Every structure is written in C-alpha cells, then in structure tokens.
C-alpha cells in the first residue's frame, strides 16, 4: 500500500489472530487427547482378527477425522483465526476428497462398477 493510505489505526494488538492464544497447558491437554486417540487407533491392530471389519474401518476413520480436525483447529489455530483460512483450506480438502473418491470408485474394485472394462 502507498504512503497515502492511513494505517495508523492498527497497533500491535489489533490483529484478529492475537485474540486467543491459549497457554501451554491447553496445548498439552490437546496433545494428550491426540495421544490417547492414537493409542486407540494402534489398539485396533491388536484386535484386528477378532473385530468385524466394518467396525474397524468406521472407528479408524472417525478417529482419523477427529485427530485431523483437532490439529487443524487448535495447533493450526484455525478455529480462532479468520474464516478465510478455513475456507481456502477446506475448499481444497473437500475438493480432493470428492474428486478422488469419484475416481477411486469408478474402478470395479468392490463390485460397484460391474461394467467397467477388463482394465485390471
């Protein structure tokens, strides 16, 4: 911006992202929860042979998504920052998930696309 723009209004405290900076204890708590979730995930390995597959997939996916969201929201401060960051990041994320899911399921891997060619 040029000199003629009046920007004297903002001081060091004015930035929106300075509003919420939790103390270290908070981060330790988040890390603790994440570690717990990770331990649960690893735990599924040990019950792999006995637990039903659908349960394994569901619980692992849920844990994965929660961990992802927690790191993004708290460690990356997304929850407290401007919504713009969330928009651009989630846009990329959602786009990736949707596009690649369509791509993946267009293959006849699980009997979903029975007329797919013999490109095996």
């Amino acid at each position, binding site marked *: 911006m040029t000199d003629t723009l009046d*920007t004297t209004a903002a*001081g060091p405290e004015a930035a929106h992202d300075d509003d919420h900076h939790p103390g270290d204890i908070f981060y330790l708590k988040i890390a603790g929860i994440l570690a717990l979730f990770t331990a649960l995930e690893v735990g599924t390995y040990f019950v792999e042979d006995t637990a039903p597959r659908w349960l394994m997939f569901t619980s692992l996916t849920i844990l994965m998504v929660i961990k992802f969201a927690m790191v993004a929201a708290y460690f990356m401060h997304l929850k407290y920052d401007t919504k713009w960051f969330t928009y651009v990041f989630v846009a990329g994320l959602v786009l990736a998930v949707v596009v690649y899911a369509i791509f993946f399921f267009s293959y006849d*891997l699980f009997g979903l696309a029975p007329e797919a060619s013999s490109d095996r």
Partner: protein
Amino acid sequence: MSDATLTEAAAAVAEGHDAHDGHGTNDHGAHGTTTGISNNKLMMWVFLGSECLLFGALISTYLLYKERFKDFAESLAPFEEDARNVGPRFGGEDGEGVFDIPFTSISSFVLLASSLTMVLALSSIRRGDYARFRVWTLTTAALGSVFIAGQIYEFTEFVQKGLGYSTNIFGSAFFTLTGFHGVHVSIGILMLLAIYIMHVQGRLNQDKAETVEIVGLYWHFVDVVWILIFTVVYLFPQ
C-alpha cells in the same frame, strides 16, 4: 538480546510507530491488507489447500494399487516363489508381508509430539521467552529427524524383506506416497533449522513471531498428512 528487543518494541509502540517503520508488530503484514490477514499467512493457507490435492492423488493412487495388487498377487503362480509377491501383510520373506505396525506406531507418536513442541515453540517466542523457543524448536527438528530416521530404517527393512521400489505396483505406490511425505518432513526440518539460525543471529525475535507461526502451519500440515497415511496405509484392515 531479548531484553533489548522487548524494550525496542515497547519504545516503538510508545512512539506510535506502526508497521510502516521497520517491522514493529506481531501482526506485521496484517496491517494494511484488505482482509486484515497477513499476506504471508494467507499465502501459507492457500498453499496448504493445494497440498490437499497433491497428497490426495498420492493416497488414492496408493489405495487403488494396494487393492489391485492384492488381486494381481492372487494370479501369481506359484505364489510363494514369485519375487514380486510382497504385500503389506502377505507374501515376502516370511509370508507375513512387510508392515510392522508397532514400529510405525512409535513413529506416529514421535511426529505427534513434534507438533506439540512446535506449538510450544511458537508460544514461547510470542511471549519473548527465547530460551524455551530455542529448546522447543530444536526439539521439534530433532523429533522430525527421529521420524525420518525411523522411515529410513523401515524402508531398508522392507527392501530386505523383498519389497523394493520396482518390485510391484504396491511397492511403487507405497514408497512414492511415503517418500513424498518424507521429503516434506525433511524440508520442514530445514525450515526449523533456518528459523533457529536466524534467531541465533538476532534476526528473528518476538515481533517476527509470525514467521514461526507460518513454519508451524506447514509442520502441522505435514503431521496431519501422516495422520491420514498412518490410518489409511497401515491401520485399515487389509
């Protein structure tokens, strides 16, 4: 040095200097932008949005090829004698495949811990606690290095068990996905060392904490990708 800088910063504020004179404020860069967000921080988030597409392609290629390889392997005969027959949990040296979940789990905890230390490093420099900043930054870099060392060890083990880059489509897809992730981690380690050095040279202090934040965003993203990889590649039932 920290005291001098704090005094400087306080003096700058007292004189009513804004970010136009040198780099006075914590939110430098945010000042004067249309959205109120700093250019640098917005740039990093925009970049991370594109990285989702990058890793998405790698992960879906991996998933596709893991499934295809399973079907392909069944057609290999004789099953046990074909050198290409090495999968995540089948084939290979002992018929059990290559994955060692307990070992990889430790790697996961290491990387998770490094995200914590990263956030503590940022918190320290924001407060002007430079001693802790140095400790946490180096710890983060060290944990990242341990992760990389673990990956290298794991990969050499896989090769020993018969799974190389060119062995089959599973190997190519696996090593490419984890390789890309590893390269991203390594670049992150370099960035951490860079901010450490810049700090020690006196060029990175409390009012430039945003630089640390931005390095942190990258680092957390790399951790988040690992959260995806660990679950999808290693933990999902084969």
